[in-house]
């Protein structure tokens, strides 16, 4: 990272730490909590999709299952976050291992569709679980400390920080480089002696586990979980966030999530036809900014540097 980037990161971090202090009301804190949670979820998909090149259209499955593990355990009387969170993340990792092992047999669009298929199956499973709310969803009563919006916000912030740091290290590690190179040229990686399948699977599992963690936070924040959390439209939304921010760019997931949610919230407050604006924004991004927002920022930056050099 350059000095300037460190500075920007520092300022943003400081700002995020101060949010609960400066926030006028709970609504703002909740909005920021949401931003951070979706930043984590989108970043986890960016690992799978952006770095690993695996276009998973079922990423919401882990997001939802993570939430349901917390929900079901809590209503069954096991509320300790240490137990519920750990179990949720482990279960999501296991689920990702299972889904990934089968889906990675296929490529391209077939991969997109088979990951979607698994997510849809889980969606309908939760719809049918009448004792856990079925299609209406399940209200959760989070344990005491987590019910305070500010405490939860800080927990979410720290979790996101840790996960992003983890992802940052992974990106530059041997594993991260191998996974990115597989995306670039799979056959050559095979010829170099890499067990390609194993790398992709592990990447898929890490992504699933982190999405599960985001789902856990989300369920706690809303004190509620419903099958909508793992609907295909939610998976699609995660994908939109990543593409919007910049596929395979480190901050792409986080930035995409933040911009997407803010855009949605802002347009939603202006007009009931806000989806028109979101749709147009997506279209414009694709047609005119193929690298996503991060790509846009870095090319603007490059342009500035060039101009300054010329001057």
């Amino acid at each position: 990272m350059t000095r300037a980037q460190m500075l920007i990161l520092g300022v943003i971090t400081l700002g995020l730490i101060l949010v609960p202090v400066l926030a006028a009301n709970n609504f703002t804190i909740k909005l920021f909590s949401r931003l951070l949670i979706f930043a984590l979820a989108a970043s986890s998909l960016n690992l799978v999709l952006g770095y690993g090149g695996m276009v998973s259209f079922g990423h919401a499955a882990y997001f939802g299952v993570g939430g349901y593990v917390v929900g079901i355990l809590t209503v069954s009387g096991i509320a300790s976050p240490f137990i519920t969170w750990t179990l949720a993340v482990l279960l999501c990792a296991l689920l990702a291992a299972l889904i990934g092992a089968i889906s990675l047999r296929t490529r391209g669009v077939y991969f997109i569709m088979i990951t979607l298929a698994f997510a849809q199956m889980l969606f309908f499973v939760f719809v049918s679980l009448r004792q856990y709310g079925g299609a209406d969803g399940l209200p959760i009563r989070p344990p005491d400390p987590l019910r305070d919006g500010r405490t939860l916000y800080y927990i979410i912030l720290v979790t996101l920080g840790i996960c992003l740091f983890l992802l940052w290290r992974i990106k530059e590690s041997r594993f991260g480089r191998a996974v990115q190179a597989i995306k670039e040229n799979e056959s050559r990686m095979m010829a170099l002696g890499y067990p390609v399948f194993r790398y992709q699977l592990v990447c898929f599992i890490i992504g699933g586990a982190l999405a599960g963690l985001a789902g856990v936070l989300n369920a706690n924040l809303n004190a509620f979980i419903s099958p909508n959390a793992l609907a295909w439209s939610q998976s699609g939304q995660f994908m939109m966030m990543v593409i919007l921010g910049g596929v395979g760019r480190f901050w792409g997931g986080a930035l995409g999530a933040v911009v997407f949610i803010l855009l949605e919230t802002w347009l939603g407050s202006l007009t009931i036809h806000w989806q028109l604006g979101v749709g147009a924004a997506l279209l414009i991004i694709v047609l005119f900014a193929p690298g996503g927002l991060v790509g846009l920022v870095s090319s603007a930056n490059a342009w500035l540097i060039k101009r300054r050099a010329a001057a």
Partner: protein
Amino acid sequence: MSALLDIQGLFKRFGGLVATNDCALDVRAGELHALIGPNGAGKTTLIGQIAGVIKPDSGRIRLDGVNITYLPPHRRVRMGLARTYQITNVFKKYSVLDNLALGVQARDGHSFRFWRPVRAERHLWDQAAEIAERVGLGVRQDVLAGALAHGEQRQLEVGLALTSRPRLLLLDEPLAGMGADEAGRMVDLIRRLRADLTILLVEHDMDAVFQLADRISVLVYGRIIASGAPEAIRANPDVQTAYLGDEVRA
């Protein structure tokens, strides 16, 4: 001399087309064995089966006495097999050094390491630089592979195969598409490599083949029709009619 690579009764069909037809071939340790044959004879298909990316329908492939017919590609690499591609297949968006470091990393223990930045692993980069030097790309280390000249990309192609420190190197038309200068450099490179490697060389350039090869096998319609010393192959009437034809008679 014992056979390092030994292929028996290999078959591969693509629909109605028999690309490998009861193919038998042995490559002895230490030799440079050339595989020649007309376009579409099934040379690349055979290389693919040896490397493990194409599954044969039947038959057996042994490396140093071990049956590798059904091993996945990465296991074969670990046993000392490496290949290059007929159509250049490198990481175009990566620098020469990054390309080679990926290869070195693959051999250097496993890569399920999630924490330490690769940049800090000096020995990976040292070895990558060494290989760049060896294939004549020492001064081009930091250039993106996609920006290299065609001949240089072919050199990188060979360099990538060398990163796994193979015992047996499969070269699929390393001279393809090269000008005279580039080809000369590549022939020199291959000559240097053969000092400590066994090589199976697929090549259409007959001058290069007859300069380099200890033995030659001729593949026609998926079947080896002749195998032997260069002079014997040149004199073989079957080979002349099937393949060398005009070139030799002229």
